């Protein structure tokens, strides 16, 4: 089994109203050096296969079709081998 960690980032050319609003909070905190706050998405899940290539293909499919909107977002991910805790205990 693999664990996938996906980062979905909105393209720089697309406004991020949330990031902009949060940065106003930073200003109010007196954190004057904070610039270009962007709020993106981090998603974790398992892929139940032993084959790394098919795991990669499935993650790509998931990202392209559902997790990211290719019109405004890019994604990147890492895959690492992962054993469920209950199996590890056996």
């Amino acid at each position, binding site marked *: 089994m693999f664990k996938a960690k996906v980062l979905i980032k909105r393209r720089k*050319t*697309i*406004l991020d*109203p*949330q990031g902009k609003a949060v940065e106003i909070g930073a200003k109010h905190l007196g954190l004057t050096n904070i610039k270009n706050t962007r709020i993106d998405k981090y998603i974790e899940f398992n892929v139940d296969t032993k084959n790394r290539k098919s795991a990669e293909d499935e993650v790509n499919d998931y990202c392209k079709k*559902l*997790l990211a*909107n290719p*019109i*405004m977002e890019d994604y990147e991910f890492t895959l690492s081998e992962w054993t469920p805790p209950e199996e590890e205990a056996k």
Partner: protein
Amino acid sequence: MKKPKFGVVVFPGSNCDHDTYYVLKKILDLDVIFLWHKQATIEDCDVIILPGGFSYGDYLRTGAIARFSPIMNEVISFANNGGFVFGICNGFQILLEAGLLPGVMIRNESLNFVCKDVYLNIENRDTVFTKGINGKSSLKIPIAHGEGNYFADENTLKELEENNQIVFKYSESDGLITDNANPNGSIMNIAGIVNKPGNVLGMMPHPERSSDSVLGKTDGRLIFKALVNNIFN
């Protein structure tokens, strides 16, 4: 005159489905049925409405999960074969995610959920959804959304303009397009667009909420009426 049969798709989290059904059935005296999102067919409907609401809790991105509901395969092929599809608010967001209309919807510039009456200038009066709406400089229709900030890249906008696909823009009551009239930051004040062939419309404002005179405004009715009058002509 032959009247079209309407199908209102119900997703988990749709909440304007009954309002839309009510307007079509009781105000406009039309044939209308609900279509549960898990069914695989759209039956014998002539027009499919994707209603407003918060399908799947707006999780991930608005409309992103509803786009993969079983009925959507049928809605997409219906639309691609010239069938009439009308997405209102969340329905518009679903159409964008399904790729039936170009562009994306992002959070309102103000970050506020905006719920109020707005005025729409009709930019294209030659669509099945707008043809015959005369004597009005703008339509008064309410919006209610947190993510109605329409965005598209330069090429897409150019294409939308060249093909006359922008149908509604947020305007002043006299139809003038101003920054002040833009409630959510939408690029070019865009409130509603059609696809290139003109059979798929998405709009953020809610015409079903301004169709019953007891609510004090009826401009939304004009859009449904135009559709009914134009669809078989």
